[in-house]
């Protein structure tokens, strides 16, 4: 593969949107007549040898795309990553970690949205546990974090969690969030 071919391949690879012939020509500072045969070569290369991706022509430009047949396998990439959580899960976990024992109502008040689903997921993943029932009318369940939670975050115990004060101490410009209930927070 010659140098221009290498460059065109890398440009298409690295761009986050399809690159048109015009753009490729501008970026590589080469005339389109030079680039066209390279595109054809690349299309041939990736098309012929049954590779994992091919050079697609989309939206007036060129872009590498994974082959359609592999979609069922690639779907799994976006799921179950141990260290990746949805924002909702992270928020819920954060509230429970810092305010335990916490009731669902408290969590939903802080998050402002229904949190039943995400709490169920966290319970299923063994990151939460039920601590008992709260002695108030309705006797709601109280939740806390589990041993697996500590393991996931590499904490020895809950006192290893940074307090809000320590957290805001990092940046003098961060104003310390007013704790709702100072006793529970710190």
């Amino acid at each position, binding site marked *: 593969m010659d140098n221009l071919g290498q460059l065109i391949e890398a440009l298409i690879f690295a761009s986050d949107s399809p690159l048109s012939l015009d753009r490729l020509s501008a970026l590589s500072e080469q005339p389109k007549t030079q680039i066209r045969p390279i595109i054809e070569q690349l299309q041939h290369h990736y098309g012929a040898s049954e590779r994992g991706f091919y050079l697609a022509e989309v939206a007036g430009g060129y872009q590498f795309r*994974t082959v359609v047949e592999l979609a069922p396998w690639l779907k799994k990439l976006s799921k179950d990553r141990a*260290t990746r959580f949805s924002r909702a899960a992270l928020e819920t*976990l954060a509230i429970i970690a810092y305010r335990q024992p916490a009731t669902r109502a408290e969590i939903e008040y802080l998050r402002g949205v229904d949190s039943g689903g995400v709490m169920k997921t966290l319970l299923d993943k063994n990151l939460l546990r039920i601590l008992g029932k709260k002695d108030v009318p309705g006797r709601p369940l109280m939740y806390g974090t589990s041993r697996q939670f500590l393991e996931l975050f590499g904490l020895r115990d809950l006192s290893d969690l940074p307090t809000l004060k320590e*957290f*805001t101490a990092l940046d003098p410009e961060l104003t310390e969030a007013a704790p709702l209930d100072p006793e529970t927070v710190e």
Partner: protein
Amino acid sequence: MAIQIQLENFSGPLDLLLHLIKSHEMDIYDIRIFEITEQYLTIIEKMQQLDLDIAGEFLLMAATLVHIKSRMLLPVSDEIGEEEEDPRAELVKRLLEYQRYKDIAESFQQLPQLERDIFVGHFQLENVLEGESEDNQVTIGIYQLADAFHQLLKDKPPEIFHEVVRESLSVADYIDRITEKLSQKKRIAFREIFSTKYSRSELIVTFIATLELVKLQVIGIEQVGAFGEMWLALTTSVDRLAQISPEKDLLTYG
């Protein structure tokens, strides 16, 4: 020596000291402390004359230098047999150690960096994510956990708990306002639906209205990147909007 030195050009007092030592061709193990102290103080004074804010750390180092200088002036007592430590020793150690991390930082700067010199692909997974609600994934660690909690508390003035939203502010009205905005534009930023003129109660009702619309699956929310802008878009036709109106009466927030 012409004082063309700008403190901002130095990452700290150690950096400035190293610069002075080098520009005066001194041996770092045998710093001419009188000379260097004088140089250092001149720079600091000049800065003060120019009314520039001098970070406390630079002043602290000035004090340290003066202290070392004064210790150097003390006669070395022969009576105490023990070898007395060079007053400069601690500073030399710090300078050497700092110099090293400064060099490493420089080497980091030279390393090929992702997104600057080296790139990874940005791919379209064909037919993969279509129709799938891509839960906004974030990397988590202890820091992210603490940050999430901090954000929640910060965005939540404590008093709201017992606040009763007045009858005059009906969620239904605000639902109408949001859907009206959305039917004019294809998508709008989450922040845009909150007028800056809104009172806190109005902000809350607008927020509840947004949640209600998401629950009714009339609008969708998408977020680009972990803390990026959130975008709202209608997920239903304008015609269907009319149908949800009766349900709005059931909303009990008002």
